[in-house]
């Protein structure tokens, strides 16, 4: 069988970079060099890797051994399997690109320390593994690693609020991690398998689900809600986004949206015949979307507002996935990709404002357009992009979401999507007005802050938004083909 050796490198290489950066803790110059070199290498690896399947230690798919009579399928994978296809390529390219941007911005901001860079690379490695893996326990391990890395990125802010947010995140991660592992354990007990493909086959062959398997689904769903920041955990997630450095928050929201996509696909693949799961996903998604937008409208702090918008958009992605048709699932994934880009622009703008005005409270800001006309213009464009105005990318995905909602027979949801994009527009345009247009007397920008790096990066990102908006099929078609071939 063809073994593509570059596939595990996507996980291993960031880990090596993290270890190196961690060793060189106080030598800032060498940390900087290592960070730049390894981020450039990290961005190249997903692009040159061939599609394929990597079997760890060469364990090929073999006949299941006889003494486990519980197995319902004739042959199983014996080792951990990583699969790399077009969907993984799109997600990983975007992930590494954004990680590189965040590393550059952190270097630019003198935030650089060995541990910080190490945590960024560890989170990169874990999200790559989560996207690539086909093994449920491997998935769990990297989710736990990611939780610690994200908490460490927030702790690095050194504010008490950030510490509180990280503590809350860790406490609830122990609940959700425990429930995911318990679910995996129960599935292992019932079906004797950990590989997702094999589990899916075994569950299909096993007929109706037993109560133990139902408990497992329920527990894993609770973990899914936590990892993707949906309803009861939306406060925890938005607290994390709010208290992290804004650049890091852009990375965190990207990671949790991609985990939402990866984990939903895994769940839908494993329990493909189980329709109730999709309804539950849909219900929690609607709840999250409404609460996220309502809370975003009420905020007076830019970072808090953006974090609630990010949570609401994650709910929109989950809504597409929860609708359950191939069309809606691919629309949801497409929306995740688009939304990550425009949310990242907004968070980077927030980072620039925090650096230059030392605050993000909306009522202390004003008249920014004279001082930073380019940033203001791009924030306005990003506002249009995130609320789905035609030339930009979110229009394409929200249009597909609405269409798929109507096709799936939930015409009401399309009204809801429109309402929510209007609400998002109002929330973000309010922030735009209060930062850039509102007359104000007491705002002082730090004249030393040029923000060249911010400007370059957000110009690149808005160009990407526009490009995807003009040629949506370049991204959308591969996703749709994959989802159809998965048959979820």
């Amino acid at each position, binding site marked *: 069988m063809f073994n593509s050796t570059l596939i595990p490198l996507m996980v291993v290489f960031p880990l090596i970079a993290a270890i190196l950066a961690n060793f060189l803790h106080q030598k800032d110059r060498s940390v900087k060099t290592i960070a730049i070199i390894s981020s450039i290498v990290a961005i190249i690896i997903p692009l040159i890797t061939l599609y394929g399947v990597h079997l760890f230690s060469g364990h090929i798919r073999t006949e299941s051994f006889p003494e486990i009579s519980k197995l319902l399928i004739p042959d199983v994978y014996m080792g951990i399997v990583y699969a790399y296809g077009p969907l993984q390529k799109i997600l990983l390219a975007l992930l590494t690109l954004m990680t590189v941007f965040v590393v550059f911005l952190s270097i630019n901001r003198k935030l650089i320390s060995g541990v910080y860079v190490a945590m960024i690379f560890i989170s990169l490695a874990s999200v790559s593994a989560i996207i690539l893996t086909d093994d449920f326990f491997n998935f769990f391990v990297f989710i736990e690693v990611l939780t610690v890395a994200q908490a460490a990125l927030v702790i690095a802010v050194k504010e*008490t609020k950030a510490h509180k947010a990280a503590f*809350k995140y860790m406490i609830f991660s122990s609940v959700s991690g425990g429930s995911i592992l*318990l679910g995996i354990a129960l599935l292992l007990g019932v079906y004797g398998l950990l590989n997702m493909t094999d589990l899916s086959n075994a569950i299909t062959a096993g007929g109706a689900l037993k109560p133990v398997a139902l408990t497992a689904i329920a527990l894993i769903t609770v973990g899914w809600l936590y990892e993707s920041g949906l309803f009861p955990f939306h406060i925890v997630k938005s607290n994390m986004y709010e208290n992290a450095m804004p650049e890091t928050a852009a990375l965190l929201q990207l990671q949790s949206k991609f985990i939402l996509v990866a984990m939903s696909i895994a769940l839908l693949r494993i329990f493909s015949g189980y329709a109730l799961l999709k309804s539950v996903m849909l219900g929690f998604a609607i709840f999250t979307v409404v609460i996220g937008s309502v809370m975003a409208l009420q905020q007076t702090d830019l970072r808090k507002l953006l974090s609630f918008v990010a949570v609401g958009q994650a709910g929109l992605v989950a809504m597409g996935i929860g609708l359950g048709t191939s069309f809606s699932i691919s629309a949801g994934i497409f929306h995740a990709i688009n939304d990550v880009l425009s949310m990242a622009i907004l968070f980077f703008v927030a980072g620039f404002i925090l650096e230059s005005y030392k605050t993000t409270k909306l009522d202390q800001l004003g008249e920014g357009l004279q001082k930073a006309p380019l940033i203001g213009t791009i924030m306005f464009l990003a506002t249009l992009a995130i609320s789905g105005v035609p030339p930009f990318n979110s229009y394409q995905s929200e249009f597909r979401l609405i269409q798929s909602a109507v096709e799936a027979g939930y015409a009401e949801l399309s009204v809801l999507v429109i309402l929510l994009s209007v609400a998002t527009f109002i929330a973000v345009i309010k922030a735009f007005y209060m930062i850039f247009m509102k007359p104000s007397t007491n705002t002082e920008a730090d004249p030393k802050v040029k923000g060249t790096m911010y400007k370059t990066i957000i110009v690149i990102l808005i160009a990407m938004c526009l490009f995807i908006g003009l040629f949506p099929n370049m991204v959308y078609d591969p996703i749709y083909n994959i989802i159809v071939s998965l048959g979820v």
Partner: protein
Amino acid sequence: MDPFQVGSFLTAGVLIVTGLWAIIMMDNLLKKVIGANLIGDGVNLVLIGIGYRPGGLVPEVTHHFHATAVPSTFSHFLAFNEFAELASYPLPFALVLTNIVIGASTLSVMLALSVVLYHKYNTLSVQKIFESMEED
């Protein structure tokens, strides 16, 4: 199912529920951390219980069989097939080893955070730390 296995599952249930209770209800930060530890222990016990085979062998290769040995009544060495039929299922044990290490690392991060929060607020009470509104 073996009664001891059932008993260990029940104990695991008690551990998980106790941990959840501590996380939800206890007011002390360290008690919450202890609860997180108990949840991890309970899940580990479930996994170990799944791998258990009543009256089986310990799945450690060196003690029980030798690749070239011929099964006989005089020797405790077993052929591989015989060993595989008698040994308990070792996959969950490997999972538990990983999970113990992960649990210890997350626990240490949580403990460090609670120490930092204590130095800021001079208390370990969640009520006083998280519900206070004096900032911002």
